[in-house]
């Protein structure tokens, strides 16, 4: 059996293990969707009128999808920290398997969950004035793209999780990253109203590109160039954080 083939089997088994968690513990799925739905309703009805009038849901949902992916990365990281604490990672490490497979399995399973959460957000969005104005196929591409971004971003959180180890500390540490990145972006409000120094950051950070790209594919059909900018960011993040995470995994 080639190394590639056996690595794929390991990743598949690990993904199945983690998907099973969502099937056996439905509340995990509920808690993953409840926060984005709450944010969606709160922001839409509390701030929506002031920010964009009636059409805020069109603006908000692609943005919230991106934020949801960032929070999803936190859950991936907390899950890994829990696996390390329980000792099952020690067992995996003593087996003749691909080193990255326990991490990849968790990240892929969480990616599948993220797709479901995105579909739920769109469905609820339809009740409050959201529409996939750019067509269904681009919208599917948009959901897949933002899920891919979530997967890429989760490697940053994975490194944090493997370094910090304690599940609760991981949660706290990750908020310090997720909140600035998602609020200092175009998730909730247009960039134009921000001060110039902040715009310089917002215009160039990956979450903004992710939001613009998702917005383009789901709603506006404008700003496709952000897809390339996002792709470059994703390559950079993977190139830095995958090797670091695997190194940290091996030694912890």
């Amino acid at each position, binding site marked *: 059996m080639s190394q590639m083939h056996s690595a794929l*089997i390991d990743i598949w088994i690990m993904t199945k293990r983690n998907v*099973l968690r969502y099937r056996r513990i439905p509340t995990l799925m509920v808690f993953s969707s409840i926060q984005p739905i709450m944010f969606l309703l709160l922001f839409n009805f509390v701030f929506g009128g002031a920010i964009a009038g009636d059409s805020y849901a069109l603006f908000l949902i692609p943005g919230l999808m991106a934020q949801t992916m960032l929070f999803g990365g936190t859950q991936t990281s907390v899950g890994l920290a829990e696996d390390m604490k329980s000792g*099952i990672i020690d*067992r995996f490490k*003593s087996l003749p398997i691909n080193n990255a497979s326990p991490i990849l399995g968790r990240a892929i399973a969480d990616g599948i969950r993220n797709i479901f959460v995105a579909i739920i957000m769109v469905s609820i969005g339809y009740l409050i004035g959201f529409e996939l104005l750019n067509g269904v196929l681009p919208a599917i591409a948009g959901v897949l793209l933002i899920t891919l971004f979530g997967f890429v971003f989760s490697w940053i959180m994975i490194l944090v999780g493997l370094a910090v180890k304690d599940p609760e500390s991981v949660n706290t540490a990750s908020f310090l990253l997720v909140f600035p990145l998602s609020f200092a972006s175009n998730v909730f409000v247009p960039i134009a109203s921000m001060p110039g120094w902040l715009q310089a950051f917002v215009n160039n950070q990956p979450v903004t590109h992710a939001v613009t790209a998702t917005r383009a594919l789901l709603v506006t059909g404008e700003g496709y160039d952000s897809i390339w900018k996002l792709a470059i960011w994703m390559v950079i993040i993977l190139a830095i954080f995958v090797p670091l995470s695997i190194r940290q995994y091996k030694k912890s």
Partner: protein
Amino acid sequence: MSQKSTKPAIDARNIKKYYKNVHALDGVSIMVKKGKIFGLLGPNGAGKTTLVKAMTTLLKPDSGSLNIGGMDAISHPGDVRKIIGLAGQYASVDEVMTGRENIEMVGRLYHINAETVKKRTEDILKRFELTEAADRPVKTYSGGMRRRLDLGASLVGEPEILFLDEPTTGLDPRTRLELWKLIRQLNDDGVTILLTTQYLDEADELADYIALIDQGKLITEGTADELKSKLGDDVIEITLTNAKDAKAALPIVEKSTHHEPLLKPNGKKITVKSTEGTKGLSHVIKHLDDAGIKPSEVSLHRPTLDDVFLELTGKPTSEGEGEPNA
């Protein structure tokens, strides 16, 4: 194969591992013969878990050489992983999965074909008396069942060498005996076993050969009998009715035996070497009687591993439960 069988199952030499300024392992060497049960005995934080982690390729030692099953564990960890099994005090199984799913998952991760995995899983479930609970999620299992499942899952790859890190820590006495029986059966089947324990009776009961480690160093090694005979002399054990009497008795015991007595942690029991056999015993009783101290029990016995441990490390073996993850 025949050439391989003459090699030791484990040959660890001068293993060192430092965490910041702590010498977790300070040059430990052990050799484990094929087909034997090797007991690694030591108190909490002695370095037992660190040594097991090094031998199971979970961590790289800072220096030393490590040969597992004839293969270099430091340069070829992947090869070593194919022939070892690991089970431990943490019972590292997935809580959400059923018992059967847990064993099957580990089997599949060894890339054994599905049919063989199924067959082996059934055999293991039966052997470990988990067939009835096989399709229940592990979170409904008792502590003993988890430990059995953990042990079972480490066998599905049919390892040549099995590492058991404190396999009975925290278990009730009956479950402990059950596990001992299973460990002995595995060894009868030809599996080489290295187990760590902080219980002397466990090492005495199971291990063909025992190494005592403390503070990252090997203190002594040998069979249980060899270790006991290292102490050589008989031991007098005196139990007093209260701690005050015990304190008063200490200098008297020392004077009458010419050996330094040890006060056990309960504060009421004194042990001391006796070079003169029963004569020493009668001296002690007479002198205590002269001082008006009435012991509730006095005995003379051959040294136990406990005595060996106290003699060599100056402290009793089990202080508190469980070893921290170090």
